[in-house]
């Protein structure tokens, strides 16, 4: 064994605890990466395995209008097997309990699913092939109204018998029926409901099991022109997998960034712990140099130690990651349309282990490389310090860390500049913490005089005298507080939509599909219940036909166009108003409230984000196809809309006097003071007008909260890795500085300082460090969260006054508590015992 390896081993024998401190910071970061990456592999493997069942068929076409004859001719040419579904929302009445509920009706025929299994309870119910009016329903309905198989339910004018509950539909998650529970009925009885007809918003779908050899993607690609012109959307196994994969990939990447934060924080902790460890080795290095050890060999002795111990840390992290991975499917599983098969992905385990080790090793090099500058003269004179010079190797290590960080972050975010900004942001934060710590030292060195309490003076002096740990402590603690608080603030921003309207004055039920001739009667029913209509709007459905003279078909065929397909394909529901509503603010142009008939171009007001997506502004023209009639419009104003308020909000608002002649239905918002009043109103409306649907907004909010709660839990689960790393780094930082405070504390004890005085000196020191780290960390987190909210999540910046105060208090208190907990041994033991223990270390 070489001298350096042998000495590294020998030197490490009595250094287990200190070396462990160097490694422990990295554990949770590696665990997070391994857990996330392994889980990502599980997701991909499961998706590959269940690819066919994701769609349940080879090819699917869907349209918001019944398929045209041209489309039907095309479908007939495809051959194979077909299965049809018509899907729409409607109110269902449950005569057993006299309750009503908005449900999603799915009338089906044919053999769907062709792949996978439509599971029901009791098993094997074939609703498509049923010759009686039966229905299978989401289990939530059975639970909600205490229903059981055999009970009746009325949809429109037809009563169905509940045959059982849905267990699993291929390609759908457990949340598919969250807002409007799913109800499957035989298509044979669709017409009998009387609900599908003019003015109904229904989705029409046809699924194909293609003949052998037919390629769904090629068929769809060849038919692109027809599909565009007929506004038919298609899905194949490949597109479904891509769409699903994309959204899961985004979630996975976000989690990965969180893991990276934990790893980076751990890296900073490793650097600090190694620096503290090596400070005790400077004389040993000098002695080795005196004995004839080369610079490289002297450094290698400690490099081997650090590499070995960080490997152990990364290994423990990898093992923890494998264990944590088992929990992730339970956390995220219900959000997915399939059950994840959990297995240990060894390549990912090794990747996380290797990457974590690399990061730890690079951060270790930062304090290790300056060992090369240790002069052997130090063995003669401990105070000998060579002049500090710029070290190109240290700069190179920083550069490598920077490149790795930018590369990793850019790879993990969909938009490369997001990744770059994330990395640059971390770099800027590091500089700010360094500047804050330097400033603190400078200020203290100038401000701490000879007056005042000795304890306070000594505590503050500890922060600016030679060999202080102020910079390391402020950077590690501050970065920890900053990263964790940013994570929590962003989580709050992401979940802020759950705070929609929950006030006592806002409407809490929405009625839609009210035909014009039903409006007066509907209003009368509302008023007969002692309630009033809070807001109402007429709606005319239309499609976008052209933008600034370019037809939608032309735009779609242009590969360079940047307008999302969903905007070009969507059915616009627009209204007319004489003035902007309470949820709208005109930010450009002039809102035109009155217009003279169909004189073109008609001035319309466009919503801000939609104008951005379409790339149009005031003065640009849009052509709409209103039920077959083209109408040229000119954008006269741009509106900012508060979508969080449950009011009738629209992308396009027309002036009065234009759309009145078009087929119209209405949407109204009502405030019902109690659940009972709400139920009574819904029942009376459904009884009188079965086609009118109602959405209980509190149910929508509950559903949203349920989903966001799960997302929030998943976020917290991942954030816990960062939190744990933060705590470990904090403890490690404080413990390593304890070693440094040992000698002077013992000296103070020797010359008569009481244990309380020593504790007070340390308390002053840790209080100042914790406070500075907390204040800078919390303010930086505020700034970072505001930046992310505005530029990445495109929402309002948070104003976390209490969160900021809490972060400052928690960081300070944790630093103080950890510091004092670690000083117990010093302040309570007899000086001699401590001296001997210190010497042994």
């Amino acid at each position, binding site marked *: 064994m070489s*001298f350096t390896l042998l000495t590294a081993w020998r030197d490490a024998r009595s250094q287990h605890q200190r070396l462990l401190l160097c490694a422990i910071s990295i554990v949770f970061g590696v665990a997070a990466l391994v857990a996330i990456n392994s889980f990502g592999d599980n997701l991909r493997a499961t998706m590959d395995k269940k690819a066919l069942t994701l769609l349940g068929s080879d090819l699917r076409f869907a349209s918001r209008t019944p398929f045209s004859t041209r489309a039907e001719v095309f479908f007939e040419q495809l051959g194979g097997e077909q299965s049809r579904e018509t899907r729409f929302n409607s109110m269902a009445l449950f005569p057993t309990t006299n309750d009503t509920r908005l449900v999603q009706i799915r009338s089906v025929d044919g053999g769907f699913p062709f792949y996978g299994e439509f599971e029901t309870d009791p098993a094997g119910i074939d609703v498509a092939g049923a010759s009686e009016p039966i229905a299978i329903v989401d289990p939530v309905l059975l639970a909600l109204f205490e229903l059981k198989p055999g009970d009746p339910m009325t949809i429109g004018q037809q009563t169905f018998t509940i045959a059982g509950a849905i267990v699993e539909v291929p390609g759908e998650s457990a949340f598919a029926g969250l807002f409007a529970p799913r109800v499957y009925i035989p298509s044979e009885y669709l017409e009998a409901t009387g609900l599908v007809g003019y003015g109904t918003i229904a989705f029409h779908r046809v699924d194909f099991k293609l003949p052998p050899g037919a390629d769904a993607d090629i068929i769809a690609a060849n038919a692109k022109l027809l599909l565009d012109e007929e506004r038919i959307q298609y899905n194949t196994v490949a597109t479904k997998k891509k769409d699903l994969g994309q959204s899961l990939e985004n979630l996975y990447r976000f989690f990965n960034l969180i893991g990276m934060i934990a790893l980076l924080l751990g890296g900073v902790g490793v650097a600090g712990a190694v620096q503290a460890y090596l400070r005790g080795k400077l004389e040993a290095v000098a002695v080795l140099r005196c*004995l*004839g050890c080369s610079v490289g060999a002297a450094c290698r002795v400690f490099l081997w130690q650090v590499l070995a111990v960080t490997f152990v840390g990364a290994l423990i992290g990898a093992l923890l990651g494998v264990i944590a991975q088992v929990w992730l499917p339970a956390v995220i599983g219900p959000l997915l349309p399939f059950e994840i098969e959990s297995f240990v992905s060894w390549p990912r385990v090794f990747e996380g282990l290797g990457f974590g080790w690399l990061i730890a090793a690079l951060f270790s090099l930062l304090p290790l490389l300056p060992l090369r500058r240790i002069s052997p003269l130090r*063995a*003669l004179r401990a105070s000998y310090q060579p002049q500090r010079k710029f070290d190109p190797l240290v700069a190179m290590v920083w550069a490598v860390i920077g490149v790795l960080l930018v590369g990793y972050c850019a790879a993990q975010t969909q938009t490369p500049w997001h990744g770059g900004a994330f990395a640059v942001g971390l770099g800027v934060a590091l500089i700010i913490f360094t500047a804050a710590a330097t400033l603190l030292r400078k200020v203290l060195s100038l401000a701490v005089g000879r007056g005042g309490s000795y304890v306070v003076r000594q505590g503050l002096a500890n922060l600016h005298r030679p060999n202080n740990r102020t910079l390391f402590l402020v950077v590690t603690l501050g970065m920890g507080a900053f990263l964790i608080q940013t994570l929590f603030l962003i989580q709050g921003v992401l979940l802020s939509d759950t705070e929609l309207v929950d006030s006592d004055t806002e409407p809490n039920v929405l009625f839609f599909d009210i035909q014009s001739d039903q409006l007066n009667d509907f209003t009368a029913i509302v008023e007969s219940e002692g309630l009033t209509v809070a807001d109402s709007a007429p709606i005319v459905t239309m499609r976008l036909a052209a933008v600034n003279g370019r037809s939608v078909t032309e735009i779609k065929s242009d590969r360079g166009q940047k307008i999302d397909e969903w905007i070009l394909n969507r059915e616009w529901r627009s209204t007319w108003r004489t003035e902007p509503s309470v949820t709208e603010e005109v930010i450009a142009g002039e809102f035109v409230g009155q217009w003279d008939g169909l004189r073109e171009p008609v001035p319309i007001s466009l919503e801000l984000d939609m104008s951005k997506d379409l790339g149009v502004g005031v003065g640009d023209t849009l052509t709409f196809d209103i039920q077959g009639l083209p109408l040229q419009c000119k954008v006269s104003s741009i509106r900012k809309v508060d979508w969080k308020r449950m009011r009738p909000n629209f992308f396009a608002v027309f002036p009065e006097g234009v759309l009145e002649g078009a087929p119209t239905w209405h949407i109204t918002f009502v405030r019902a003071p109690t659940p009972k009043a709400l139920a009574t109103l819904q029942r009376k409306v459904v009884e009188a007008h079965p086609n009118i649907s109602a959405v209980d907004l509190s149910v929508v909010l509950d559903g949203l909260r349920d989903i966001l709660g799960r997302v929030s839990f998943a976020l917290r689960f991942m954030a816990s890795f960062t939190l744990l790393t933060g705590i470990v780094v904090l403890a490690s930082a404080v413990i390593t500085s304890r070693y440094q405070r040992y000698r002077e504390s013992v000296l103070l004890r020797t010359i008569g300082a009481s244990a309380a005085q020593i504790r007070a000196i340390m308390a002053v020191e840790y209080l100042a460090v914790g406070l500075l780290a907390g204040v800078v960390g919390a303010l930086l987190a505020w700034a970072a969260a505001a930046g992310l909210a505005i530029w990445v999540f495109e929402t309002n910046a948070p104003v976390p006054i209490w969160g900021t105060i809490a972060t400052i208090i928690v960081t300070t208190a944790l630093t103080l508590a950890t510091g004092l907990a670690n000083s117990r041994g010093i302040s309570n033991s007899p000086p001699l015992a401590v001296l*001997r223990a210190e010497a042994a270390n």
Partner: protein
Amino acid sequence: MSESDQSANPAPVLEAIDVRKSYASAHGSLEILKGVDFRLSAGETLAIVGPSGCGKTTLLGLCAGLDNPSSGSIKLQGVAWDSMTEDGRAAYRNRHVGFVFQNFQLIPTLTARENVLAPLELRGERGVGHLADEWLAKVGLSDRQDHYPIQLSGGEQQRVALARAFINDPKILFADEPTGNLDPETGARIEELLFALNRDHGATLVLVTHDHDLAARCQRRLAMRSGQIAQLNA
């Protein structure tokens, strides 16, 4: 012997030529050594004495190649330290130089035996454990070879340091106040041992000391004051 008489001596083991050393400080350049010249022949013993802060330890460090002078030159066995790279100087020290420090400077995490072996292991020698055993026996610590420095008294630590200094059979031994941290009785024993080992092995000895008795045992005495040689005699 006066300075002019030295030219009559055989080739010197150690030669200092107009050695100057200064350090940057907050108040400008601080000159520690202001032109030091002397020669030392093989087997001679030299004591460097003088008040604190006169540059004794700095001169010793420069003679041992632990740093470069700001100007002037120091040659060991005819080879100038400044003609070698940092690692070259380290390798040269490993082969030809021994060290004894005031505060012993044993590596705390190595046992006594491992500390003694370090110089040989550093140059990759194997199967040399018996040499450490022999040296520990010579200094009377055979029964303490597996003890860590913390488990040894000051005198015992300095004896381990002596064994470590001599194990590579150095041509020259540098000692920085070798008895400075020891009580008189222990100091005297270490002193005896140092000179006995030096005599047995024919090494040149350069030591820094405040102890007049110790200085008197050396053949030559170099007295320093304010970074300059105040007196150099035999």
